[in-house]
């Protein structure tokens, strides 16, 4: 596979790129946080797998217009994971953040950071980090529910566990991906409609 267009821009991640990563991480987390804050209401816990990828697609699609170097999306995923972990979402999200950030990065790289389809696919994979937030419900479920019960009481836990049965795991995992793709499409449309016009995409 020979590259016709050799990019003269260095592939090394420089200071400017790192700042870009930081800036988009903040935007991403603030936007996710708007919906994430709802998730102490039981019904919104499974729904975060729908809303967060859907909304997160907008900043992500704008972000990939700036992140043209390998590693940037991985760093963003890792950072989101670390910050979510510090905010008390459990350690799983730090792992999923890194893993799905890396997968998204590889997908972007396979499209040479140009392909529109690959970008949307990457958005779908990237959105799966969100699944790490829900992971404690499935891995070590008993301990987590007991711990919730201690903090929020039995009534809350029974409501939550009825919304989050074990069989919902694969559904949520697929949902994050599908809605990530949808979010990517929305993000792409919004990029076209707003951000290009504003001169930032």
């Amino acid at each position: 596979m020979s590259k016709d267009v050799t990019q003269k821009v260095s592939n090394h991640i420089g200071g400017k790129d790192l700042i870009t990563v930081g800036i988009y991480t903040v935007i991403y987390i603030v936007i996710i946080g708007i919906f994430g804050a709802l998730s102490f209401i039981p019904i919104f816990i499974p729904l975060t797998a729908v809303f967060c990828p859907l909304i997160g697609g907008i900043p992500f699609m704008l972000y990939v217009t700036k992140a043209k170097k390998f590693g940037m999306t991985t760093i963003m995923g890792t950072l989101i994971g670390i910050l979510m972990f510090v905010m008390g979402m459990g350690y799983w999200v730090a792992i999923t953040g890194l893993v799905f950030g890396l997968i998204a990065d590889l997908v972007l790289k396979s499209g040479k950071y140009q392909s529109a389809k690959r970008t949307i696919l990457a958005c779908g994979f990237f959105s799966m980090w969100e699944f790490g937030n829900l992971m404690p419900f499935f891995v070590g479920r008993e301990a987590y529910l007991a711990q919730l019960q201690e903090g929020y009481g039995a009534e809350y836990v029974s409501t939550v566990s009825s919304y989050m049965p074990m069989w919902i795991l694969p559904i949520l995992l697929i949902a994050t991906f599908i809605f990530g793709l949808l979010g990517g499409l929305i993000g792409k449309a919004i990029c076209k409609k707003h951000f290009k016009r504003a001169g930032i995409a």
Partner: protein
Amino acid sequence: MRREFLSSEQQKKGIHFDPRTKLLLILIISVFVLGGAGGNAMYFLRPVLSLVPFAMLISVGRGFHAALYIIAYTVCYVAQLILLPILTGFTNFLVLILAGTFCRFLPGFIIAYFVVTTTTVSEFMAGMERMHMPSKITIPLSVVFRFAPTVLEEAASISDAMKMRGIRFGGKKSSKILEYRLIPMITCSVKIGEELSAAALTRGLGAPLKRTNICEIGFHFPDVIIFILCGVTVAWAIFSAFSI
């Protein structure tokens, strides 16, 4: 006063803690109090850990904030202990959400508040460098701390402006919230971010050299106390996990 997360001026009075100690504290409190790790075994240690933010605030001479915190925490804690067994139904749920959430989030929130208001960006970077964290993580992370207040501020201003136009939850044009609030916020933030990026590059952030730092950080006696406390917490958590 401008809102900022990591302060730009060094703290003048009180006990200085090493930035690494502060990070450890955030980690421990977010894992054991906010994240609720350790389960029932941590039942007695959790209030003790929750006292740490109080002590920290006192140590830098913010008695007023410390008092507010301890009162709020005690009220919630007592409410949980006394009211929950009595109440049922909706009131139970309400108390649960309010008191439970507060008890969980308040210590973490206060310690984070303490850390970000007493640590300078330079101290943070120096601490990170001593821990051999790669700059690929520390630079974006410090940008996050620097930039988050700006984004929140922008979001608040845009929210005000859109309220005036009737674009709010329950308003006439609530369907347009997404487009009319999110998009301007992103646009604004990105533009400010570009300026921030330019400013940082002018100061030589992109230079391919090892950066020096004039901050003198190191572990002293107060740090040791915090380390012992954290060590005991972790040891207790491991011990109880294995003995059950």
